[in-house]
């Protein structure tokens, strides 16, 4: 009832693990895959090993979570084994990758075996990477094209909301040959400790995730659905089945779930059973609700 084909990948449900969550080890990806996710996305992987920013790197705030992990990763050269372990669970494993230029991206995509690649051109707090690239349509188009040349598997581009017009970036990804876009990465944010005046995050600022950003993400998905011909994958602030349905009505063909996994490791099973009951009760299919907000 919840199964679908997304950019050629067969998924048992439209609920995927978002990049950066439980995604560094094959064991953790496998655990999430076995607890009901339709697919899992790895931690963003780069060319060289990277330790990330100093702690605190993630902190809960009143309306969500702020993080500035700083793209810690073991490099693609040490990561195939983790993907292979994750694959044992039998769901697609998507490798999130990042780089400073199109050569970095194509080097990684040419070497790693994954079911798809998600290009991180949207991390808001890593100097020279992520959103510093992803706010520039020409770079996004070039990188997407380079990765498409380097691999035969689907290529998704994850977009930053920290731009004036996300549609321009989505269109650039589409021109570069992207098979889908993913929206959104975290929203730039900051928290300051009033006892001392210190910014709380080791990196001083970071990205906001969780409940607070859902309406921002819904609007981005809504706009991208109108502007693009390729599928839109929604992410940002999902913790319940109703959030997923809202994203799909805005135009998402599938979604990714991140921060909410922390408090409910079984969230994928929970949401899929709630979604099934909802669709049954409404006598709707996934196709019916996909983009519904544009059709009523």
């Amino acid at each position, binding site marked *: 009832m919840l199964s679908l084909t997304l950019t050629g990948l067969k998924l048992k449900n439209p609920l995927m693990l978002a990049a950066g*969550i439980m995604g560094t080890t094959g064991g*953790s990806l496998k*655990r999430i895959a076995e607890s009901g996710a339709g697919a899992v996305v790895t931690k963003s992987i780069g060319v060289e090993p990277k330790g990330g920013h100093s*702690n605190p*790197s993630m902190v809960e705030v009143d309306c969500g979570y702020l993080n500035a992990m700083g793209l810690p990763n073991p490099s693609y050269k040490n990561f195939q084994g983790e993907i292979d372990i994750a694959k044992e669970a039998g769901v697609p494993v998507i490798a999130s990758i990042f780089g400073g230029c199109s050569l970095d991206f194509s080097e990684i995509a040419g070497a790693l075996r994954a079911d798809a690649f998600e290009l991180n051109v949207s991390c808001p707090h890593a100097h020279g990477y992520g959103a510093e690239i992803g706010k520039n349509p020409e770079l996004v188009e070039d990188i997407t094209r380079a990765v498409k040349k380097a691999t035969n598997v689907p290529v998704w581009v994850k977009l930053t909301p920290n731009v004036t017009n996300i549609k321009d970036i989505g269109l650039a990804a589409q021109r570069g040959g992207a098979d889908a876009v993913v929206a959104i990465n975290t929203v730039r944010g900051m928290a300051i400790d009033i*006892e001392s005046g*210190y910014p709380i995050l*080791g990196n001083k600022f970071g990205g906001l995730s969780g409940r607070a950003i859902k309406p921002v993400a819904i609007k981005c998905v809504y706009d991208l659905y109108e502007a693009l011909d390729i599928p839109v994958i929604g992410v940002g602030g999902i913790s319940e089945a109703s959030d997923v349905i809202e994203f799909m009505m805005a135009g998402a063909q599938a979604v990714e779930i991140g921060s909410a996994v922390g408090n409910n490791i079984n969230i994928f099973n929970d949401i899929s059973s709630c979604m099934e009951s909802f669709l049954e009760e409404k006598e709707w299919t996934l196709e019916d609700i996909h983009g519904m907000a544009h059709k009523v």
Partner: protein
Amino acid sequence: MRPVNAVITKVVDETPTIRTFYFDTSFELIPGQFVMVWIRGVDELPMALSYENAITVQKVGHATSALFELGECDSVGIRGPFGNGFDIKNGHILLVAGGVGAAPLAPLAEKASASGLKVTTLLGAKTKEELLFRERFEAAGEVRVATDDGSEGIHGYVTQLLDDAKNYSQLCCCGPEIMMKKVLDNVAPSKAQFSLHRYIKCGIGICGACCIDGLRVCKDGPVFQGDILKKSEFGVYRRNECGERVMV
């Protein structure tokens, strides 16, 4: 939660390398739980609570060195307590502590003894001077000591005391991973719990940096039953801040 401001009210030298920092803030504590201690401008580290209002820390790196620069009236930020803590069951409890690993076990000894359980502690350290919280364990029950240099108790590792330890119904262990692995290999895994140390980033079960296989040390742990660890990477490899495997 955002970090809570905790003012240091007292600093006690426990051993030449280990200090206890007392705070003006108390936490409702299950022994074995940890807090994230933010040394502002430096780093944030996971630390076991050794009292409901204190942490006991060994100076090992740049962040703990920065913490050792702090004194009375200075403050740190604290998030937590996080994690599960030890599950105290009825019956004779055997504690196996190595070095600063005694920090989370001392409040456990006190809690278990206060609730009428028989407590025996095997306490190990490099030298006599490095034995941590010996008096607290002695107040809770029998203590047997091992030192690497033989300056107190038996000459050797605390794991050598295991052979004579009989008739306990549960074992709680904290110390260097190699020592804990030895304990795991020599006891009934289902009777034993181990408090693990891993590189922790978020502390709240989201990022996955501290995962041992699929288990989050910060949220599903830091205390795990031996039978779960038996078939895991425990004692074989850990991961560095990049997520690369590093042999233990």
